[in-house]
């Protein structure tokens, strides 16, 4: 389509020569509010990208589903050099296996924007899932070659909410549709938020079992915290805060990795 061609990336500044196509741009998800989501598609580098599935990646946060993580740090074909001026190839890019679609969502993340400032104060799970579904439907009309193609959603962290919620929306949309174009096959989530109470107890247990916190801190948290409560008590928050002092200066997201100074 013409719109598709307008979104074609000729080349990114500082990028090495590659044999796959890339597209990026905006899809409006709410006309009256002027809400638009930014996407970046890197097609498969295989000899037959048209036979490869489409994979949508969402990050966590909320507020972090930007191209920095999925595309530039994790599964995308390009890594950014230390100077921020050149790109180099990721030898383990997932676009060898799939066509990769990165979405900056919800509005306020990355390049995604809204013309209605109150939208920033109303972001939540429900609207994010709804906007992402509208995005997908519109995006597939811009890229009709991906209609009916095997489609997967993958994400991490708070995407433990985004991914199943979007999958559910698609599933319900498809049930009401005579000829559904989104051929959702499945999803995968990594280190996901799944269930507040069990996630919290599991986290405290990990801290203790990996010798990150003392027995005293561990027992104090167990004594003072009720993770089934809607809001955690002051005493609970204080016990967690005190326990965090046991960590020392480490990267909590990777406990044996030196912290970025």
């Amino acid at each position, binding site marked *: 389509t013409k719109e598709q061609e*307008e979104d074609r990336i000729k080349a990114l*500044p500082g990028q090495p020569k590659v044999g796959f196509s890339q597209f*990026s*741009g905006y899809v409006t998800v709410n006309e009256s509010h002027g809400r638009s989501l930014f996407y970046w598609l890197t097609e498969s580098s295989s000899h037959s990208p048209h036979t490869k599935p489409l994979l949508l990646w969402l990050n966590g*946060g*909320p*507020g*972090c589903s*930007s191209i*920095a*993580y999925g595309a*530039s*740090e*994790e599964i995308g074909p390009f890594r*950014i050099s230390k*100077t*921020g*001026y050149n790109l180099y190839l*990721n030898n*383990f890019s*997932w676009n060898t*296996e*799939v066509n990769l679609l990165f979405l900056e969502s919800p509005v*306020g*993340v*990355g*390049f995604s924007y809204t013309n209605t400032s109150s939208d*920033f104060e109303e*972001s*939540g*799970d*429900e609207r994010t899932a709804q906007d992402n579904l509208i995005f997908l439907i519109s995006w597939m009309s811009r890229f009709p070659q991906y209609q009916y193609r095997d489609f*997967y959603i993958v994400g*991490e*962290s708070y995407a*433990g*909410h985004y991914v*199943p919620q979007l999958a*559910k929306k698609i*599933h319900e949309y498809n049930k009401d549709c005579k000829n559904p174009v989104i051929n959702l096959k499945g*999803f*995968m989530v*990594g*280190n*996901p938020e*799944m*269930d507040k*109470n*069990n*996630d919290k107890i*599991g*986290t405290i247990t*990990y801290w203790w079992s990996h010798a*990150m916190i003392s027995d005293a801190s561990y027992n104090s948290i167990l004594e003072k915290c009720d993770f089934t409560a809607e809001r955690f008590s002051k005493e609970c928050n204080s016990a967690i805060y005190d326990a965090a002092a046991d960590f020392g200066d480490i*990267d*909590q*997201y*990777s*406990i044996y*990795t030196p912290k970025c100074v």
Partner: protein
Amino acid sequence: CTENYAEIYYNRPEVQRAMHANHTVIPYKWTACSDSVFDNWNWRDSDNSMLPIYKELIAAGLRIWVYSGDTDSVIPVTATRFSLSKLNLTVKTRWYPWYSGNQVGGRTEVYEGLTFVTVRGAGHEVPFFQPQSALILLRSFLAGKELPRSY
């Protein structure tokens, strides 16, 4: 530190032009993580548990895999195991070590309707910390096949 490199790259005007981004001149810098989105998030609209949705989608027949980098302490492997245990799924293939190259890539257990995988030595961003293992994981997921038992 790679997040810092992204902050430089995606704020360059020529990069934004090449990506057809920011044509409305957004009144804030591109950032990897939006604090304002996080700070204003409507938590009342955030369910305490996603497990009912997992149950519904397992019943719908979707392929569902959950993986966990085992050096993450923010949403660690024990958190995911405790949560998954509440789904009361039947074990289809018992817990076993899987291989990435000639090393153990992690452990896995296949339930009816859901596959759980740990990735050894990976933090919160699994494909960043263990790219080769993550690619093997993706291939198995796409193929709907169990992870390799040997090298």
